[in-house]
């Protein structure tokens, strides 16, 4: 009646049950394959699935790390547009402080643009 339960014991039991729950279907599938349904792997079946086409080359290709520059440039303009539109809509009711804060923000982004310009990123050749 008054048995004391330790919570660690419960966690342990649940851990074992969870493991069994996950592993049992795999084991049953293995046994089923051994008794009835033979496994038949093959070159096509084991190949990478690419919508039915044969894969041409290795899927793990490398990208040039210099692309981060384009990513930054995109971000500059992207963020700018997102914030400039509501800024323009609400411009009439804005206080001086808010306008100044917005100016600082835009200047920060312009600084990024100037930096990219100086590095020559804007030359698309």
């Amino acid at each position, binding site marked *: 009646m008054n048995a004391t339960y330790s919570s660690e014991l419960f966690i342990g039991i649940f851990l074992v049950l969870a493991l069994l729950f996950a592993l049992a279907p795999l084991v049953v599938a293995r046994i089923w394959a051994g008794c*009835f*349904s*033979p496994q*038949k792997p*093959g*070159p*096509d*079946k084991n*190949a990478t*699935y690419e*919508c*039915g*086409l*044969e894969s041409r080359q290795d899927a793990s290709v490398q990208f040039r790390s210099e692309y981060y520059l384009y990513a930054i440039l995109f971000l500059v303009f992207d963020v700018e547009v997102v914030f400039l539109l509501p800024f323009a809509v609400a411009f009439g009711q804005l206080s001086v402080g808010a306008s100044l804060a917005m100016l600082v923000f835009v200047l920060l982004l312009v600084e990024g643009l100037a930096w990219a310009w100086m590095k020559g990123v804007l030359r698309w050749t």
Partner: protein
Amino acid sequence: MPMIEAALQDELRKQGVFITTLEDLYNWGRKNSVWPLQFGLACCAIEMMAASMARHDLARFGAEVFRPSPRQADLMIVAGTVTKKMAPQVVRLYNQMPEPKYVIAMGACAISGGPFKQGYNVLKGIDRYIPVDVHIPGCPPRPEALLHAFMTLQEKIDAQALSGPNRPRHMRADEPSEFPVPKFGDHDLEPPHNKSVWSPPGAAGQS
């Protein structure tokens, strides 16, 4: 070998004792959860989509889960015109499906080339390369025809033996699970058909 006759089984069921065999249980589960490959080739695919929608409701047969990958599919519905350019891909997709797998050839195009039979670029039936379980005639077949094909396939699955000499292909270790993928030749696909699954009409037995 039936362990217990159907009459006795019926009698027991009336008394509230339910007896089944592993084979029945296995087939019952399989036939009610056939997952088709999400794969449409031409106009017949529109009818296939209609069959999976609310009005015709393929879900009643447990087959509404169209899988986007052949790894998870049991059934390939060849719904539409198989061009010779597409045929190798169709066969490869079939090869990539795990066993047991089934094929429904839907529409005149998939079973014979249909209205494009005289065309230079259309395969005259997908059963030249892969074993087809159910053929549906029609151009296009109505969704009801696809449902009927489904029920036919379910009957077929239900009748498959788990062991013994009549067991189906996927239960035999010596039968292939992959079929040769045709190549693009100079004038036609090479080979023009798979001799082990199809032989020209009139040449039956010679293959």
